[in-house]
């Protein structure tokens, strides 16, 4: 791993055309006068967010029927901090009996309480949950960072506020469902089995639970094996909000638990976010069962940068598009398609910008890139990066020492990539950018669409007509223009082709939860 850090198979480092990385000038510093900076870098002192706001329990039980009750399996999994591999807590490995209990509790709550509750009353619970998420935001942000490895600045400024926004937004829908375009009196579907991934544990939970509850459904949710803690904290939030027992149930466990849940005969609707491979298995298992299914799967998003783009902002957008959340984003802009006439200048600026990315302690407020969530994911990223090199693409990473413990991968850009390379086709789900060039708008669109996925894309140009022309032709569920990774609860999100089906968020997202 350390072998890739700071390597430069192209031989080109950031030139004068952009900010010089701080590390460069350290050595010269001592020679300068006194303690004054005078052209020397300002070294940010460590600014760690305190862990003390979080009280971790030694072991966590699943949340069923309003209470934390021991799993009948008696088995546990350990969840660890990916930044230092220290175990954080034991969580229950739920089995069939536990899933049965959770689904039964959800059914009782649906029939006895929730479906008949006036929408305005359901909305009050959702507003309450949203406010509690805001009140406990610091605690949730720190916990999410500990369990997931993502930087505190992202959990603090993105994950938690956006999760709260989803509850606020859907709270507003709860008594206005007649206006959702689903007829004058749309009805809830029933019990929803929901399985969420590890990349945005709390936010994906919010995307799933908020619309389900607003529409009058009850929920059994399984968080990812490696990131169960924020969902269990969310269970506490439900208790604090006085949510009727059984409306939200959280069962923890591994892939087997998830399979048991989605295949459970008591579930009326299944919502899954995760890998295409698992999604395909779920679709197969559910075929003919009559259950509703929405899938939000992988992606290989293209960021198209035209020669007339606002280059400095496009660089920011590309960096944000692929290095946000260590690249563990299904809609990541992991392919850069840059017009050949500006490619060299753009890459020079991009490399210089990448040299400023700060990788390290996720709890430090100045950290831009945190830890890879698990050893297994790190292995997959390394494997694909190795394949990229073996296939002849040039890898470049800025000078970037990696911590000794934990799972880390440096931000990496591959140049000399073609459509035929695996790094250009397969989802890496890590901080790895593949750069391809194009000559004409037609070629850009053809290359962007030439992927089995179709989740996201970006278009960078200052010319409105070209922007619209391009966006119209991109087969992706979301197309951002002159920005990237913008998420609003009012905006539907979802994919084409192997990126899944169904939409989450907005009026379209309600459709999955209403009959």
């Amino acid at each position, binding site marked *: 791993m350390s072998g890739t850090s700071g390597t430069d198979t192209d031989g080109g480092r950031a*030139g*004068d*055309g*952009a*900010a*010089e990385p*701080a590390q460069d*000038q350290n050595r010269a510093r001592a020679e300068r006068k006194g*303690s*004054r*900076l*005078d*052209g*020397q*870098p*300002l*070294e*940010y*002192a*460590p*600014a760690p967010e305190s862990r003390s706001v979080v009280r971790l329990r030694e072991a966590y039980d699943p949340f069923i029927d309003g209470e934390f009750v021991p799993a009948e399996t008696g088995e546990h999994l350990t969840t660890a901090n990916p930044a230092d591999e220290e175990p954080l807590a034991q969580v229950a490995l739920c089995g069939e009996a536990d899933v049965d209990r959770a689904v039964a509790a959800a059914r009782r709550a649906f029939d006895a309480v929730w479906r008949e509750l006036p929408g305005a009353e359901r909305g009050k619970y959702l507003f309450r949950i949203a406010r509690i998420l805001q009140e406990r935001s610091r605690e949730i942000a720190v916990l999410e960072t500990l369990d997931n490895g993502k930087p505190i*600045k992202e959990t603090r*400024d993105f994950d938690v506020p956006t999760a709260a926004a989803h509850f606020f937004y859907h709270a507003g829908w709860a008594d206005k469902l007649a206006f959702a375009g689903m007829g004058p009196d749309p009805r809830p579907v029933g019990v929803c089995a929901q399985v969420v991934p590890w990349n945005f544990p709390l936010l994906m939970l919010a995307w799933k639970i908020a619309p389900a509850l607003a529409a009058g459904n009850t929920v059994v949710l399984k968080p990812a094996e490696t990131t169960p803690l924020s969902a269990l904290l969310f269970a506490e939030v439900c208790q604090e909000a006085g949510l009727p027992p059984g409306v939200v149930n959280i069962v923890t466990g591994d892939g087997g638990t998830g399979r048991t849940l989605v295949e459970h005969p008591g579930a009326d609707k299944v919502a899954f976010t995760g890998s295409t491979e698992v999604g395909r298995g779920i679709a197969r298992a559910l075929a003919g069962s009559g259950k509703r299914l929405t899938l939000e799967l992988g992606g290989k998003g293209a960021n198209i940068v035209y020669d*007339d*783009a*606002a*280059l*400095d*902002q*496009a660089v*920011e*957008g590309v960096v944000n598009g692929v290095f946000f959340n260590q690249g563990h984003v299904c809609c990541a802009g992991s392919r850069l398609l840059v017009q050949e006439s500006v490619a060299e*200048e753009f890459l020079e600026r991009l490399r210089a910008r990448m040299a*400023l990315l700060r990788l390290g302690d996720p709890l430090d*407020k*100045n950290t831009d890139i945190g830890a890879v969530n698990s050893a297994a994911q790190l292995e997959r990223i390394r494997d694909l990066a190795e394949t990229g090199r073996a296939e002849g693409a040039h890898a470049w990473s800025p000078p970037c020492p990696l911590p000794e413990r934990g799972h880390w991968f440096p931000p990496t850009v591959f140049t000399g990539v073609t459509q035929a390379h695996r790094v250009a086709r397969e989802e890496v789900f890590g901080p790895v950018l593949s750069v391809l060039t194009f000559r004409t708008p037609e070629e850009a669109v053809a290359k962007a669409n030439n992927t089995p996925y179709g989740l996201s894309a970006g278009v960078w140009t*200052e010319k409105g007509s070209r922007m619209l022309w391009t966006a119209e032709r991109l087969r992706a569920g979301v197309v951002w223009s*002159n*920005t990237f990774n913008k998420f609003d609860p009012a905006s539907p999100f979802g994919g084409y082709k192997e990126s899944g089906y169904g939409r989450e968020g907005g009026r379209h997202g309600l459709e999955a939860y209403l009959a």
Partner: protein
Amino acid sequence: MPQTASAAEQAPTNRALREFLHGLPGVDEVGARERAAGLATRSVKTTAKAAALDLAVRMVDLTTLEGADTPGKVRALAAKARRPDPDDPSAPSAAAVCVYSDLVGVAVEALRGSGVGVASVATAFPSGRAPLEAKLADTRRAVADGATEIDMVIDRGAFLSGDYRKVHEEITAVKQACGGAHLKVILETGELATLDNVRRASWLAMGAGADFIKTSTGKVAPAATPPVVLVMLEAVRGHRAATGRTVGVKPAGGIRTAKDAVRNLVMVQEVAGPRWLDPALFRIGASSLLNDLLMQRSKLRTGAYAGPDYFTID
């Protein structure tokens, strides 16, 4: 972008300037605002904060630009710039004082031997609405009286009407009149309105010989907003890459707290590069900022905030 820079210098016809300036990559306002806001979340603590505060003090152009300015007021300001915190000899001096041209002599006298520079606004500050001869006379007089730095304003009317050549010629002429004095060119970004204009005006001024580009007069709001400073820092970085010449940046107007000042330094470091973390290449035009910097300095040293009466008002 870089290749045409020298062409613009050699052939400052309106057409050539227009082609060059409008050929620069655009600025996306939303993206620039977002980047500036992102950098504002950098957490600068303990040792980093101490270094940043000291550097910020040394970058202050302590300014008084009032119709009511008197020799007495300027002498008081000079004393403050020379020794900002009488209780703490370790507090560095400010970079310069900035006054109207008729008070340059007073400032020079008061600052003799201190190493603190004397900057003078000139060229019909703040509006810039005067004949070129008057602007040049203003400049020459300030330099003759001992000003080491001249802060000129561009003709925003000419810029907005597309007469880039006029703006270019005025800057060139004033630069010549400056002799050995450093020339800071005030773009008055609040009147240029768009970030595309800020980028163009920055390149225009740099191409015409500016040693510094400066955001504002302080008489127009908005002044030194973070996105504007960001775009100007991108411009000096790009200009150095294209021509090898390093131009400084001076935000002025609206930077009142130590926190704002430190955020500016973070932008300098991460947008232009550490090279610009130097009073020779980055200044902050301010008046009330200085005492907040001193207050934060003393808080770091003593662990407690002293009240405002423990810091001299001028």
